[in-house]
């Protein structure tokens, strides 16, 4: 597991069933592209988040194949229509095999 990896998720404060909400996610990660060369002329090995997945109660919202062209601390924003109460599960897949998972239950108002 890489150091200093912290997922953040932002959802609207109040959500009603049927709303289309904007989901913002960010995970702190170096996203080492594998293109950089260090002072000795050696290539720094690639170490990125290569997949991001979001599902609502087991049904996929978005599934992203992430390349090294995505910036450090990858930020993803997408839309989601809330069908009813339930939980959103977010997963980030690291090159080193780690999977960072977060769950957010949607409290309807």
């Amino acid at each position, binding site marked *: 597991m890489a150091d200093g990896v912290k997922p953040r998720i932002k959802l609207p404060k109040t959500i009603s069933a049927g709303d289309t909400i904007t989901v913002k996610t960010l995970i702190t990660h170096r996203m080492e*592209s594998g293109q950089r*060369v260090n002072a000795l002329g050696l290539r720094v090995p690639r170490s990125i988040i290569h997949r991001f997945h979001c599902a609502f109660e087991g049904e*996929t919202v*978005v*599934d992203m194949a*992430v390349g090294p*062209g995505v910036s450090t601390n990858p930020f993803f*924003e*997408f839309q989601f229509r809330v069908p009813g109460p339930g939980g959103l599960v977010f997963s980030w897949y690291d090159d080193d095999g780690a999977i960072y998972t977060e769950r957010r239950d949607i409290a309807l108002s």
Partner: protein
Amino acid sequence: MSVTRRDAMRVGAGALAGFAMPARAQHAQSEITPEQAIAAFVGDGPVSDGGVTLTLPDLAEDGYRVAVEIDAPGAAEVVLIAPGNPVPQVLAVTFGPMAVVQRVSTRMRLDQTQEVLALARMPDGRVRRATRQVDVVVGGCA
């Protein structure tokens, strides 16, 4: 014949250069060309412009993080390609049944001034395309 210090230095420098060269060479070339990345997504079907909106700044001062938004109403899959980057395919998104509005935003790296490309595959298999020219001041891949 004896080995002098000078000879030893030459061998050492040569070995170091041997390490350094492949690393530099690999920076210039990528395993997948932009054409291959596009062909892998499109297949042999037709591509039409329109139906996809790609939002990017005209001028990116910092190539390390450029905000990008792809709006592809009704699309099943979208792919973001930066032909001027060492690895052209930046992001591929599959929209699941729970995504009703097919719009994503992220931040991307741009190595140089280039025309960024977004392709979207509709549920019926047609492919839509949008392009945006972005001037990059400081490249974001080195």
